């Protein structure tokens, strides 16, 4: 029998990864609770993928203590892998195999076979909406189908913890909705999820708790709602249009406590949006949109507007 699942499916203390003199992950403390969806957010190069790789035992930490599903990592990575599912950022489906063969071959890596496996595969094909494609080659699948197959493959061993590295990158909105729906089903079944994504809407919808990291360090952590409440003004007005800069310097700035320029748009962060909106109604040449602050505003405030590559 497998040991019982601990209350914390991931416990990391002082997790650090250095390559030469460069510190990619810097003294990270993380805890992921059983049954929650935990988000790991950050700009490119923040250390997300390295952190995930250490959690999976695929990269050896330079320092720190790490337990995943109760197993010390990397020492007992093999035992942990029996109960882990991984959806990698880059597809690594076997291109020479059909959908069905991909699932059964991957199952063989876990030592799974027989009638129970056949039943599991039937179930997973339905879960991934791929019943009609069971005998199709990988080359004939759309991007969304491949992601769903990768998700189904990650579930072949009925894992307790699922690690998803940008599961919806590159998908169209419909395909993304379908993946979200499936991830929510998994959460309802009691599985624990760790997710990285560049889509703040995705994190806001799915994650119970998340951290935003940059330069290998945690900037903030909490639930999406907490982060929005604690780190940003509740209202955002986005303004663009001809003559905006002149308007801002002569009139606008008296209504705005904090604002940021990004491209040709001015983002205004406000506790009370009404005075600014009244003023804007007198400027027909300016376009503006008022909305509630969201996680993306928090993310940009904390990590800056400049492009990361």
């Amino acid at each position, binding site marked *: 029998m497998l040991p019982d699942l601990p209350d914390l499916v991931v416990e990391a203390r002082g997790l650090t990864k250095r390559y030469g003199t460069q510190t990619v992950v810097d003294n990270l403390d993380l805890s992921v609770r059983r049954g929650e969806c935990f988000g790991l957010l950050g700009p490119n190069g923040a250390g997300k993928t390295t952190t995930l790789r250490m959690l*999976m*035992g*695929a*990269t*050896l930490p330079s320092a720190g203590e790490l337990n995943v599903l109760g197993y010390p990592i*990397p020492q007992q990575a*093999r*035992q942990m*892998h*029996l109960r*882990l599912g*991984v959806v*990698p950022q*880059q*597809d*690594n489906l*076997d*291109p*020479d*195999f059909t959908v069905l*063969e991909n699932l059964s*071959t*991957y199952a*063989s*890596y*876990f*030592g799974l076979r027989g009638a129970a496996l056949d039943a599991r595969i039937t179930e997973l094909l339905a879960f991934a909406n791929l019943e009609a494609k069971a005998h199709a080659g990988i080359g004939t699948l759309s991007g969304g189908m491949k992601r769903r197959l990768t998700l189904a493959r990650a579930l072949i*061993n009925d894992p307790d913890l699922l690690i998803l590295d940008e599961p919806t990158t590159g998908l169209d909105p419909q395909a993304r909705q379908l993946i979200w729906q499936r991830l929510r089903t998994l959460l309802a079944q009691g599985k624990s999820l760790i997710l990285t994504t560049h889509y703040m809407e995705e994190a806001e919808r799915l994650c119970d708790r998340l951290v935003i990291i940059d330069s290998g360090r945690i900037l903030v952590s909490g639930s999406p709602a907490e982060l929005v409440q604690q780190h940003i003004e509740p209202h955002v007005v986005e303004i663009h249009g001809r003559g905006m800069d002149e308007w801002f310097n002569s009139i606008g700035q008296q209504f705005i406590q904090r604002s940021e320029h990004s491209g040709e748009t001015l983002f205004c962060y406000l506790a009370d949006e009404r005075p600014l909106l009244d003023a804007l109604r007198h400027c027909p040449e300016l376009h503006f949109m008022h909305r509630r602050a969201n996680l993306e505003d928090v993310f940009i405030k904390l990590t800056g507007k400049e492009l990361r590559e």
Partner: protein
Amino acid sequence: MSRAFPSITLRWLPVWRRNLRVWRKLSGPALIGNFGEPLLYLLALGYGLGGFIGEVNGLPYIVFLASGIVCASAMNTASFEGLYSAYTRMAVQNTWGGMLATPLSIDDIVLGEILWAGTKSLISAIPILLVAALLGVVHDASALGVLPVVFIIGVCFGAMALVVTALAKSYDFFIYYFTLVITPLFLVSGVFFPLDGMPDAVRIGAQLLPLAHAVDVVRPLMTGQPLPSLTLLYLMVPLLYAVGAFWLATVLLRRRLIS
């Protein structure tokens, strides 16, 4: 930990079986490549060149050549598998990356790949042996004893190729290995001509490398001559290379894939 000798368990089996499954789907072109080319060498050189040469060591040239071609084909097949195919699985298709997220480890993958390379060598040698038998250049059923030797050659060269793959940054890197190692071995291991007439340096050099000993065992098995008295010792040479390369490939791949 990272330099430890690889752990040996039965977990290599799913890795091996995955490769077999792919091979079965693509076996048409693979078979033609593995066995068509050596067969052309055998026919063209055996009959063409053989007409001028006549006998070598008391054997018709094609009979002499057939045993060498079986060994060379085993070496080439395993080398291709351990270089190009393994590199594709490692760096292009990320197949190994997927395996490493499961209970399989680098050690299991390397062992599975090495045993698969040995299997591929067997798959390529069997049709050549069959054709050689049909042409009447095989002496008797003791030629079946060639198969375990072919497997050893495949395991040896598969393991050596994986060391090169572990160091490769792209497919181009393999040209060095083919030009500097495989082709010289192909030419001076007694495949095409006996080594007796070669300068001492070449002869002794060839004796330190794995292919010549295998040829020395395969040739009597196929031609019905008595086996050399040191047969087991001869087979230890490719086996030692295999074990050393297995260890080195595992250590290098641990460093490359899990660092």
